[in-house]
């Protein structure tokens, strides 16, 4: 590191130094850079750690149970003798709850996003959007209680006879709807961000051609914001698949391979939650089951994220 004298040497005393080296070595810059790298590395390290902790016990599980029996078996009874480890009822349970949640959350979330971004007066938006985001912060145990003690009785009361038997006390629909309620703010808020980021010039261009607000929103803003909108839905799906407390409290614990919303099911997360907090010895096959199911959950979310990234690349409309 050159000191100031080196550069200014050869000048007459009193002549202003035309110094090129830094006044101080700026060690702080290097420290900050190091800290930032550390933070970025931490998230990767965590993900890797989770992977390793899932894979280890899962290997133990797959020594005992064949992957084919696990993935394609339709009977889940790990603690009954003889045990059966077909995971499909759990997968279907999770997908069923997710599906009902999405049917509820996607239209409402997107409609809310369109309203906030294209219709709401700025003052209304500045109140509504934070309120909506508070909804995303409600503890899921409170939502689970809400599903069990309010939504389920309501569904039972309102159930129209021509649809057959009403909902069981534990049912996929009630859990699905409340999970939907939980992800509405995620979809609405992220989609609204994506739509607000569409340049105003595109809106003006469409409006100047005699397009109504709805047409501007649906035909210009929506396609231009598609990648953000899809991202919001994917995030919502991930939250729905991973949600534990609501399904545990409202959807029951019956491994049941059905998409029928009124029946009790057992979701993958609920199984993990119940079993992990139950009385099970480490190293047993029952214990390893938790990790196998967890690994499958991890892979499902990963595959879905990869598919959505591809879809977004294919369909998005890029504006400068």
């Amino acid at each position, binding site marked *: 590191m050159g000191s100031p004298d080196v550069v200014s040497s050869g000048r007459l005393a009193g002549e202003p130094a035309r110094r090129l080296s830094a006044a101080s070595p700026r060690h702080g810059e290097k420290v900050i850079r190091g800290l930032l790298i550390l933070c970025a590395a931490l998230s990767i390290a965590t993900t890797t750690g989770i992977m390793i902790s899932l894979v280890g016990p899962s290997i133990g599980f797959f020594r005992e149970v064949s992957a084919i029996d696990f993935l394609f078996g339709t009977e889940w009874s790990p603690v009954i003798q003889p045990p059966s480890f077909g995971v499909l009822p759990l997968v279907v349970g999770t997908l069923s709850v997710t599906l009902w949640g999405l049917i509820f959350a996607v239209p409402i979330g997107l409609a809310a996003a369109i309203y906030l971004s294209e219709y709401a007066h700025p003052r209304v938006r500045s109140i509504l959007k934070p309120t909506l985001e508070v909804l995303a912060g409600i503890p899921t145990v409170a939502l689970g209680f809400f599903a069990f003690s309010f939504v389920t009785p309501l569904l039972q009361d309102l159930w129209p006879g021509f649809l057959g038997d009403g909902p069981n006390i534990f049912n996929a629909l009630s859990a699905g709807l409340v999970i939907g309620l939980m992800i509405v703010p995620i979809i609405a808020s992220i989609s609204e961000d994506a739509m607000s980021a569409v340049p105003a010039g*595109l809106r003006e261009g*469409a409006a*100047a*051609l*005699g397009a*109504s607000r709805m047409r501007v929103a649906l035909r*210009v803003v929506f396609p231009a914001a598609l990648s953000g909108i899809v991202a919001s839905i994917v995030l919502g799906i991930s939250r729905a698949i991973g949600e534990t407390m609501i399904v545990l409290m409202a959807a029951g614990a019956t491994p049941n391979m059905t998409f029928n919303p009124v029946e009790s099911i057992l979701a993958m997360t609920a199984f993990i939650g119940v079993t992990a907090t139950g009385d099970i010895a480490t190293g047993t096959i029952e214990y390893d089951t938790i990790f196998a199911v967890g690994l499958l959950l991890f892979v499902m979310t990963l595959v879905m994220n990869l598919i959505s990234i591809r879809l977004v690349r294919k369909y998005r*409309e*890029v*504006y400068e």
Partner: protein
Amino acid sequence: MSTGDGVPGPGDTPGLAIHTEVPKHEHIGSKETVFELKDLSVFYGDTPAVRNVSMDIFKNDITALIGPSGCGKSTLIRCLNRMNDLIPTAKVTGQLLYHGEDLYGGNVDPVQVRKLIGMVFQKPNPFPKSIYDNIAFGPRTLGMQGDMDDIVEKALRDAALWDEVKDRLHSNAYGMSGGQQQRLCIARCIAVQPDVILMDEPCSALDPISTGKIEDLMLDLKERYSIVIVTHNMQQAARVSDRTAFLIVELTADEKDRWGEIVEYDETEKIFTNPSDERTEAYISGRFG
């Protein structure tokens, strides 16, 4: 929609008339007026942006609005197709007649107004879609009858863009040069066969060659359309326009509020050779602004 000899107007397109019967057009000399502005002022909240503008804009003319930055040229042109309605705080007072009908009347639908009065913006704003879909957007919005391929081709030919893009109609409009994008926006605008085309500094983001092409295009288009253009470029106003309005910035004594006012509005040749107001002369000769 038949436009007969190619002169579209509300009289020829009853399906697009604003609401009420279009009254008999007023004539001044031999020219038919399209817009009559009477004491028109625009405010954003309580702050005035343009004040007391009175002028007549004539059919098949190119009317230029010139003046220094902040004089409200853009605000003024955006009144003419009610684009200012998109800004929640904007308020218009005074009177603005379009073919004799109050453009800000209670029964006038701004969406309908914009079907008749198209607009081209300062920054080219093609949709992030194919060239074809950009042109087809307006006709589809209006539910125009006829073969869409023909409508698209005609609009692109009229905008002198067909030969450059006919082999890549289905590629994204963002692959075009800035000048081509702006001509695409003009093509998109004329595809819906409007009565008037408003252009808000359409060449300010373009190089001189693209600018020249757009100026040539404007001179072609004025045969069939009435054009109002806002420009920073005085040479451009002198080259293309028939009539020019010169606006300046006025300040309150305490310099808290500033707004635009019209100084002089006349035939372009007179404005540039023999202006009646010395402020116009100072501006066009480059002594201020």
